[in-house]
């Protein structure tokens, strides 16, 4: 018995996924549990395991294709099973046309009787449906063809949609030249009729250049839109980020509080710790120290470790610290769970692993959710102060700027001190200026005098 490979529902928010890569090809043996292919969700790239052991006998969507969740994208045949697709392939069907010269039977001309047991008409929802043979339905589902695309094309007995109708549809799709996404976008924007565009070489796809050519030849293109540009489609991840950023600004009332703090003692503390560490130990960063400090301060300012959904404020007992990470796919925020119960060394270790996997794209959706407070550090990129965006339903986010050595007044004298910029954004719907400032003050006190952490 062959087993269908389904696209798993990996994202809470999306009902399509993009296939990134197949790790096996047709004919390869696969083992249940082995990674078969990878998909991209809005949050991460994930591996999908094979549901069975056997031979991969059919692949219905390839790298780069966007597929519906729970659709069939492959088939695994039992080892030893005849190695062919479970249903007849397109080649087989070409002979199944209605035989020429044979008289049409009366059966073909009949329409389908839609009366109930006493001859009464059946309700519309019962009869307003497509009549297709089970075999045709199975093939259509396998190929991802919505049956509604076959409406009116039934050539079987009593105008049933049958297998050859599905195969004919597939053939028709195949004989249309493919269009690259870029070319399609360009055609949409410029109003070019793709059915009038030919690919540069027969059998290849229509590219942006082909669309441009047809534009310049004036074949059906309007006179405007002359400057060239490159259209880029958003990835699912980027789309999600765009949406969430916009929502954040629409929903919350963000106010950012900025100040500088003398971090000289913290810098020295860190240097001392680094000296004592072994060669292969994890080196705590300023972010790690700030996480530690923020957790301590949050315990005195529980209002900032909270969720607000517009109605209710949820004060959270534990601090799950989200860290903003800039990845190639876009901004991600993996979460250190129960950060308030961990020491700096452990925080550093967890942070290192999380960020590493986030950058690689192997972090799991669970690890990207559930944060109660966010820290974002743009210091390494030279930013002193900025206005970090809130991550609803969180009510606060702390931005860390760079540490500069500048002359500053210290104990009445001009000294070179290490000064760090901090930017705290709070949701003014539930956190007013003074409480926010008090929180920031407590953070800064601990940065200035790390010894006070003992209290």
């Amino acid at each position: 018995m062959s087993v269908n490979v389904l696209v798993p529902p990996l994202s809470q928010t999306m009902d399509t996924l993009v296939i990134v890569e197949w790790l096996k090809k047709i004919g390869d043996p696969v083992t249940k549990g082995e990674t078969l292919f990878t998909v991209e969700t809005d949050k991460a790239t994930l591996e999908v395991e094979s549901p069975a052991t056997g031979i991969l006998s059919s692949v219905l969507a390839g790298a780069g294709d966007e597929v519906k969740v729970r659709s069939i994208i492959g088939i695994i045949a039992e080892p030893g099973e005849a190695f062919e697709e479970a249903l007849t392939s397109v080649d087989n069907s070409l002979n199944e046309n209605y035989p020429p010269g044979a008289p049409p039977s009366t059966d073909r001309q009949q329409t389908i009787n839609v009366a109930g047991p006493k001859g009464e008409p059946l309700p519309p929802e019962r009869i307003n449906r497509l009549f297709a043979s089970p075999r045709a339905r199975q093939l259509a589902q396998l190929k991802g063809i919505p049956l509604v695309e076959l409406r009116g094309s039934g050539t079987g007995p009593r105008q049933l949609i049958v297998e050859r109708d599905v195969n004919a549809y597939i053939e028709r799709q195949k004989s249309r030249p493919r269009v690259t996404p870029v070319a399609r976008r360009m055609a949409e924007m410029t109003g070019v009729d793709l059915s009038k565009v030919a690919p540069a070489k027969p059998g290849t796809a229509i590219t942006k250049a082909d669309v441009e050519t047809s534009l310049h030849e004036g074949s059906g293109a309007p006179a405007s839109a002359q400057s060239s540009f490159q259209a880029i489609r958003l990835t699912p991840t980027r789309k999600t980020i765009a949406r969430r950023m916009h929502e954040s600004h629409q929903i919350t009332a963000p106010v950012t509080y900025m100040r500088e703090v003398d971090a000289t003692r913290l810098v020295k503390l860190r240097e001392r710790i680094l000296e004592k560490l072994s060669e292969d130990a994890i080196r705590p960063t300023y972010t790690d120290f700030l996480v530690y400090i923020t957790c301590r301060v949050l315990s005195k300012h529980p209002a900032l470790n909270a969720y607000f959904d517009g109605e209710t404020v949820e004060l959270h007992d534990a601090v799950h610290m989200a860290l903003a990470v800039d990845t190639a796919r876009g901004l991600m925020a993996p979460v250190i769970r129960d950060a308030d119960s961990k020491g700096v060394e452990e925080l550093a270790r967890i942070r290192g692993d999380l960020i590493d996997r986030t950058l690689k794209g192997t972090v799991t959706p669970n690890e990207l959710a559930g944060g109660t407070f966010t820290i974002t550090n743009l210091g390494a990129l030279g930013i002193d102060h900025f206005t970090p965006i809130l991550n609803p339903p969180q009510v606060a986010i702390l931005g860390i700027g760079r540490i500069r050595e500048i002359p500053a007044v210290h104990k009445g004298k001009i000294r070179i001190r290490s000064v760090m910029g901090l930017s705290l954004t709070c949701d003014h719907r539930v956190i007013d200026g003074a409480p926010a400032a008090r929180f920031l003050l407590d953070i800064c006190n601990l940065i200035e005098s790390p010894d006070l952490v003992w209290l």
Partner: protein
Amino acid sequence: MAKMTIAEALRQAIREEMQRDERVFCIGEDIGIEGGFGGAFTVTLGLSQEFGHERILDTPISETAIAGVAIGSAIGGMRPIADVQYSDFLFCMMDQLVNQAAKLRYMSGGTLSVPMVMRAPVGATARGSQHAQSPEAFFTHVPGLKIVAPATAYDAKGLLKSAVRDDNPVLVFEHKLLYGSKGARSEKGSLSPIGEVPEEEYLVPIGEGVIRRPGKDVTIVATLLMLYRALSAAESLSNQGIEAEVIDPRTLVPLDKELILGSVRKTGRLLIVEEDNLTNGWGAEIAAIVADEAFMWLDAPIKRVAAPDVPPPFAPVLEREYVPSEQKIIDAVLSIF
């Protein structure tokens, strides 16, 4: 290899089994009479000379006694090959077959068995309603009976031998127009297929069907005379671009279900051809099995071509309309394309 008619093949099977096992004997009307026919269709011709009248036992016209004695002697340790002259007469021994032979093993909790064979010729041959039926369906419905229907000389010999060696009651349906009986007993309009039959010992297993003609567009299931009509129809259909897969089940009980299901999975279309009346024929059972177990593979409704629900008529023109013709088979196939 020898070339034989079906009657000869059956005779050879009986001869070999009787030589091999002294418990085997034949019982029926007119089967051993000196100077007689050797049974209505010559199958037992000459056997009483070879084996004597004790082992080729002629009976009065007593179908109930033929069946009852077969049953009793089988329980008592013999292996009888009984026969009726026309399958229509099976109804005269219905109680013995259905209430006794089929049930005795079960009622005994499996402590006894009834290893008997009952042979019966079927098919319409211008003799009128009471000598023309194909009543297999009456018996395929009875738990406890095995039913075979050999359509070739090879299968006739192999299946009859298997039936004799089977420890259960086996009904063997033969077709009057396929015997190939010669001389005074030859049948008008008969097909008389001559087949190659190996000289050495072989058996055809009960419960195994065979694909007579492979194809990919429609599965046709047919037995006995209808098998040959289906094969002719398949040739005509091939000229129209339709390749039919013709299956001869050879055994109706136990049915080779997997062969038929596998074929329908391949072709998506099923037609059953039987010489029996349409309603509640054995074809209906196969249609139900396929609708249940291969539903997802069907590309068209399941069709049956059978005799109309009337007794077999006499006049040749009426009989031709009654018995499914090659054209009716072709039309049925085209209607599901």
